[in-house]
C-alpha cells in the first residue's frame, strides 16, 4: 500500500480531507469556492453552493439570498437600519464586559465606575463606547423610522414590520434611559427622577406605577436594582425578540423597499429590469456589510480614543437638587411639553396619543402611493412633526423659560455645580491669593508676582465683572458689589469665594449670594 502512494496522491487525499472539513464548517463552501468568493469570481460548482448556505447555515438562513439592486442604493436607505443593528451588537458586546465590573447598589455603583476607570485597562474606553453606542443607536433608530416614513415603506405588506419598528424605537429609548441611572451620579439620579416622576402623573394608577418603577417613593437601592435588571435582562430580551421578528419580516417576506420611482414612476422596461436585478448576499452584500462593520468599529475606536468621553458627575445626592436638571436629550421634547401645561395632560395623555398615532400611521394613511409627490399631506405632516420635535426639545433645555436669579446665574456660569466651567479651568498656579473686587481691582495686571502673569485668571475676572456690570445696568442687581476671594486653604488646595452683594430691587434689603469652591492642584481640567 505504501508503494502505491506517491506524493501527489497524498497531497490530493489531504486536500480532499481538508476540503471536506471546510465544507462542514462553512455549510457547503469548499476551498475552491472560498477562493472564488474572495476574488469576486462566479461560483465554481453547480448548483450554486452559495445559495445552499442559506438553507444549511443557521446564521444565513435568516438572511435572504439576494437583494434587488435598487434597494441597495445608498441614498434610499442610508444603511440606517444596518447601523442601528450594528450599534445593538456593540452595546451587547461592551455591555457584557461592563457587567463584570458593575455593582448594582447605591453604595457600590459609583465606586465600581471609579474602579473601572482607574483600575481596568481599556475600562474608560469600554464605558465611552457603550455610552456613545447608546446615543448613536437612539439617533440611528429614530432616523431609520423617519426614512421609512418619508419613503412610504410602511404600506401594504410592511404594516406589521412598521409596528414592530415602533416597538423597537420604544425599547431603544427605554434601554438607553435605564442605562442612564446605573452610574449613580448626580446626572443619572436627577434625570431619572424627572423621568419617572412622569409616571406619577398617570391617572388612577400613577402612585402604583411610580412605586413599581422606583421600588419606593424615591429612587434608592430597590429602584437601582430594577433599572439594572431591566437594562441587562428584560429590555435586551425584548429587543432581541422584536428585532428577530422585524428582520425576519424584511428578509423573508417583503424585503427592503425599492425607491418609489421604480414602482410607480415612468421608468423604461430596461431601467426597471436593471433595478430588480439580483445582487447576491454571498459574496457581494456580505463583503459590503463586513466592510461597513469594520468602518463603524474604526470610527468608534477613533472617537473614544481621542474625542468622546462619557460624562461622570459627582456621586448621586438625593438631598441636593442640581440647579440645571436635564432629562437625556432624547426626552427634551417631553420636558418642553411639560413646561407648557399640566403634568397628566402633557406628560401622559399627549405622549400616549403620539405613540398611538405612530402605531396607527399605516392604518390612517390609506393612500396607496409611495412617491414623495403623490402624498403631499403625509410628507408635510412628517416634516412638520420633526420641526415641532426640534422646537419642543429646545424648550425642554434649562435655557428656556426657567428664570434663575441673576447672581445665582452668574456664579453658576462661572463655576457650575458639575463639570468644569471657566473658573475651574484656570491653571492652579495662576490662582494668586488675594481679594479681587469688580470695578475696584484693575483687571489687567492681577498677578505682578508671576513671571508670565495670569491671563486666564484675568480673563475670568474680566468676564465676571462684565456679567455683574451688565446685571447692574439692567436693574437686576442694583448697587452690586462683587468680589472674588482666593485663599490658600491647605497644601495644594485653594478656596475660591465669588461673592455678590446687592440691594434687592423690590424690598431694598441687602442680599448676598456666594459660592465656596475648593480647587486641588491635581484636579483634571476637562
Amino acid at each position: 500500500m505504501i508503494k502505491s502512494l506517491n506524493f501527489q496522491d497524498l497531497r490530493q487525499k489531504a486536500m480532499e480531507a481538508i476540503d471536506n472539513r471546510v465544507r462542514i464548517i462553512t455549510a457547503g463552501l469548499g476551498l475552491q469556492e472560498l477562493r472564488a468568493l474572495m476574488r469576486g469570481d462566479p461560483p465554481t460548482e453547480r448548483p450554486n453552493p452559495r445559495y445552499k448556505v442559506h438553507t444549511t447555515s443557521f446564521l444565513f438562513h435568516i438572511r435572504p439570498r439576494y437583494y434587488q439592486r435598487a434597494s441597495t442604493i445608498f441614498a434610499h436607505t442610508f444603511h440606517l437600519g444596518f447601523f442601528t443593528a450594528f450599534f445593538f451588537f456593540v452595546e451587547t458586546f461592551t455591555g457584557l464586559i461592563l457587567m463584570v465590573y458593575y455593582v448594582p447598589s447605591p453604595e457600590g455603583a459609583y465606586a465600581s465606575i471609579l474602579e473601572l476607570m482607574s483600575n481596568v485597562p481599556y475600562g474608560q474606553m469600554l464605558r465611552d463606547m457603550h455610552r456613545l453606542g447608546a446615543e448613536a443607536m437612539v439617533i440611528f433608530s429614530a432616523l431609520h423610522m423617519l426614512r421609512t416614513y418619508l419613503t412610504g415603506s410602511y404600506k401594504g405588506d410592511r404594516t406589521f414590520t412598521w409596528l414592530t419598528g415602533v416597538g423597537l424605537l420604544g425599547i431603544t429609548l427605554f434601554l438607553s434611559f435605564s442605562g442612564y441611572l446605573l452610574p449613580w451620579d448626580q446626572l443619572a439620579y436627577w434625570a431619572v427622577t424627572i423621568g419617572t416622576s412622569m409616571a406619577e402623573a398617570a391617572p388612577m394608577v400613577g402612585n402604583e406605577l411610580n412605586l413599581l418603577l422606583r421600588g419606593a417613593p424615591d429612587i434608592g437601592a430597590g429602584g437601582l436594582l430594577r433599572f439594572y435588571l431591566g437594562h441587562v435582562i428584560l429590555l435586551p430580551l425584548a429587543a432581541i425578540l422584536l428585532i428577530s421578528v422585524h428582520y425576519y419580516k424584511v428578509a423573508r417576506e417583503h424585503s427592503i423597499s425599492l425607491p418609489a420611482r421604480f414602482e410607480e414612476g415612468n421608468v423604461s422596461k430596461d431601467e426597471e429590469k436593471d433595478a430588480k436585478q439580483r445582487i447576491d448576499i454571498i459574496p457581494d452584500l456580505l463583503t459590503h456589510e463586513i466592510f461597513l462593520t469594520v468602518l463603524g468599529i474604526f470610527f468608534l475606536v477613533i472617537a473614544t480614543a481621542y474625542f468622546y468621553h462619557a460624562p461622570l458627575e459627582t456621586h448621586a445626592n438625593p438631598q441636593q437638587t442640581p440647579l440645571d436638571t436635564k432629562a437625556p436629550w432624547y426626552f427634551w421634547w417631553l420636558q418642553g411639553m411639560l413646561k407648557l401645561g399640566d403634568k397628566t395632560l402633557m406628560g401622559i395623555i399627549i405622549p400616549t396619543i403620539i405613540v398611538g398615532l405612530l402605531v396607527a400611521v399605516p392604518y390612517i394613511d390609506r393612500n396607496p402611493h409611495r412617491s414623495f409627490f403623490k402624498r403631499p399631506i403625509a410628507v408635510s405632516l412628517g416634516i412638520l412633526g420633526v420641526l415641532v420635535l426640534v422646537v419642543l426639545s429646545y424648550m425642554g433645555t434649562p435655557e428656556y423659560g426657567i428664570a434663575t436669579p441673576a447672581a445665582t446665574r452668574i456664579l453658576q456660569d462661572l463655576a457650575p455645580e458639575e463639570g468644569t466651567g471657566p473658573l475651574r479651568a484656570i491653571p492652579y498656579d495662576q490662582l494668586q491669593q488675594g481679594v479681587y473686587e469688580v470695578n475696584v481691582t484693575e483687571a489687567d495686571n492681577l498677578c505682578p508676582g508671576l513671571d508670565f502673569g495670569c491671563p486666564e485668571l484675568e480673563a475670568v475676572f474680566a468676564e465676571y465683572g462684565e456679567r455683574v456690570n451688565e446685571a447692574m445696568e439692567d436693574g437686576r442687581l442694583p448697587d452690586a458689589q462683587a468680589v472674588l476671594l482666593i485663599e490658600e486653604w491647605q497644601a495644594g488646595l485653594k478656596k475660591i469665594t465669588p461673592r455678590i452683594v446687592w440691594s434687592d430691587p423690590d424690598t431694598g434689603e441687602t442680599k448676598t449670594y456666594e459660592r465656596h469652591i475648593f480647587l486641588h492642584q491635581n484636579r483634571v481640567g476637562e
Partner: protein
Amino acid sequence: MTRLQLEIALGTILVVVSTIILILFGFSENRRMTRFEEAQQAHAIEVGAGLFETHCSGCHGLKGEGIEGLCPPLNDRPFFTDRLEEVGWTGPLEDYIIATVSGGRLTSTRPEHYAGQGKPAMPAWSEDLGGPLRRDQIRNLAAFIMNWEATALEQVVLEELPTPTPSPEELDDPVARGRLVFLDMGCGACHAIDGVSTGAVGPNLNQISEVAATRVEGMTAEEYIRESILMPNAHIVEGFPENVMPLNFDERLSQEQLDDVVTFLLAQQ
C-alpha cells in the same frame, strides 16, 4: 478593481489601523489610570473641604484649628504624630478619622480641654448610625483632613490672606468690638444670633438683653450676662445640659474683651 475587491482591501487596512490605534492606546493606559486616580483623590479632597465647612467647621474651626474648650484641632502636629498612640488605635490615621466621624464620640477623651458639644461629645455622622453623611462622603472628609498633614508637620507653610483691618469706626464702637470677640472666642459655634452665627448647642441669644433682665430676680441684664460668661453653671437654662460651656473664660478674656462682648450681647434685643 471591482467594488468587492476594493472593500476587502480597504476593510483590511481599516482593521490593521484600528488594531494599531488600540495597541497604542493601551500603552498609555497605565499613565491614564494613575492620572485618574490622582484626580479622583484631588476631587475627594475638594468635596471633603466643602463637607467640612458645612458640617464640621462650626466646632472644629473653619480651618480645623479647633475651639478651645469645645473641640480639638485637627490641623496641628500632635494630631498627626501622637493622637493614635494616645487613643491606642492600631490602624492608620485615615481609618481612625473615618471611624470617629462615622460613630462620633459618646464622651470626650480629653474632657478638661475639649469637652465637646455635650452628650454625646460628638454626634455620629454616618447615615448608618442616624447621621447625615454617606460612606463615600465620610471618606472624602477623611481625605481632606489627612491633607493637613503637610502643613501640620511644617513641610509646607501657607501664606495667610491678610485679614481686612477693621475700620476706625468699628474699633471705636464697643458693640462692633464685642462682635469680633464673640466670633473669635467661638461663641457662635454653640449660640445663634441672627446674622452673626448659627450654632444650636446652647441657647439662642437673639433677644438676650431682654431675656437676661427677667431671668433672675434682683439681677440686671448686665450682671446676669457677665456672671453666665464667667460661671456658666450658675444659671442653666431649662433643657440645656450643665458643664458644656467652657469654664475658663475668666482666664481667656481680658477685662476689656469681657466688657465689649457684654455690651455686644446687651445690644441684642
